[in-house]
């Protein structure tokens, strides 16, 4: 036992002194690593990615000119969320709402959502991200969309970094899931109001993300509360599985000087009206469930 301990401690010491030194793979026993740590390669071999709610709002804004405030969640309801689960999911919802109001230059409404976000973040240990300095900086730049988006996306990146480094990947995942549901709700509702082929295309583009979310919810099954969401997302996936995606590969073009690759593939997305309606209804149902948590 003592021998094993000495070998292990020697490894820890060497690793912390100089990580460039040769480390034999045999010396690392992966079973000792916490599977929920963000620094663990053995996180089921998976890293998760969910589209930025800000980007989705920008894409929708480029496609549809009209601002639709009725699709947003009510910021006043923020105080009713009393569990980490409901707070994290609704922090995601409000983040997406903030993104939508921001890209539509609704500065005063944006501040209301920012205030809701500040309230939720302070309750889940992220008060340092949306602190007074942040609010002042955001307020000063709110008339400049580009600057305010840089400030906001950086803040959310900081929050994500903090949660992951504190081994709170579950909370980070719930925030992302909440924001994704809200942006999908925007797209489906905007399209129901007035059919728009580009918006339909954006809805179809989400096919892959549904599977990612189901994987995420399974990963955090221990939280208990995720069971119902897992069932709902599995149903949503059933509808997304009926979205037909045709892909044709074409060799990309590289500009070495600019450090840029231009993709040239072709991608067609086909969704029937029936499937589109089913996706819209299921998304609305999941969103309602999230909004009414702990209320």
């Amino acid at each position, binding site marked *: 036992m003592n021998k094993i301990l000495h070998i292990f401690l020697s490894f820890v010491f060497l690793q912390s002194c100089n990580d460039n030194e040769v480390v034999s793979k045999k010396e690392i026993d992966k079973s000792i690593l916490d599977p929920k740590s963000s620094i663990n390669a053995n996180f089921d071999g998976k890293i998760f990615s969910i589209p930025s709610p800000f*980007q989705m709002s920008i894409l929708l804004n480029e496609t549809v000119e009209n601002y639709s405030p009725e699709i947003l969640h009510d910021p006043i309801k923020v105080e009713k969320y009393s569990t980490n689960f409901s707070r994290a999911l609704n922090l995601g919802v409000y983040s997406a709402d903030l993104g939508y109001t921001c890209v539509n230059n609704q500065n005063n409404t944006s501040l209301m959502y920012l205030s809701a976000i500040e309230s939720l973040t302070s309750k889940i240990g992220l008060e340092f991200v949306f602190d007074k300095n942040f609010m002042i900086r955001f307020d000063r730049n709110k008339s400049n969309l580009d600057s305010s988006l840089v400030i906001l996306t950086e803040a959310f990146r900081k929050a994500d970094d903090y949660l992951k480094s504190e081994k709170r990947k579950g909370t980070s995942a719930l925030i992302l899931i909440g924001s994704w549901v809200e942006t999908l709700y925007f797209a489906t509702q905007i399209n129901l109001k007035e059919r728009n082929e580009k918006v339909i295309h954006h809805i179809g583009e989400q096919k892959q993300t549904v599977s990612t979310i189901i994987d995420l919810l399974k990963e955090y099954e221990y939280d208990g509360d995720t069971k119902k969401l897992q069932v709902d997302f599995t149903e949503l996936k059933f509808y997304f599985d009926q979205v037909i995606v045709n892909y044709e590969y074409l060799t990309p073009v590289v500009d070495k000087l600019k450090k840029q*690759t231009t993709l040239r593939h072709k991608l067609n997305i086909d969704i029937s009206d029936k499937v589109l309606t089913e996706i819209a209804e299921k998304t609305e149902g999941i969103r309602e469930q999230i909004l009414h948590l702990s209320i």
Partner: protein
Amino acid sequence: MNFFKNILILTLSIMAFNYSFSQECSGLVEICKNNLIKGNPKFLSDGQVYSVLLNNEKAEFKTTFFGNSTYRIAVTSGIEDDYVVFSVKDLDGNILFTNKDYGNSAHWDFKVPETLPVVIETELDLDKKKAGCVVMLIGFIQ
């Protein structure tokens, strides 16, 4: 008694080990951020930090590049810029890009006229670094 003592030492060592890597990852995020925001216009972060501890293995994840956007992938695993190899593949496995062909460049931009689900694969260049934390950030501009 000795058994419990050993368990305690082992637990503390594991905590120190994890803490050491956690600190390493946190420090790398700022370095990576500099690669993400180089130049004008500024890329907006997708709001996520992708960090992973690698030791002679690959990490991969799926994401979607949305059409009419330009993406930047920035990576780091230390002070030197060329420790990390990353590749972008389509879901059929076609390699769309690998920084291995460009001196392990620490960042690369992708102009995306049409949406595409992709797989991003990351590994350490074992000739330069054997093990450690790899941080990746993804940014976009419309």
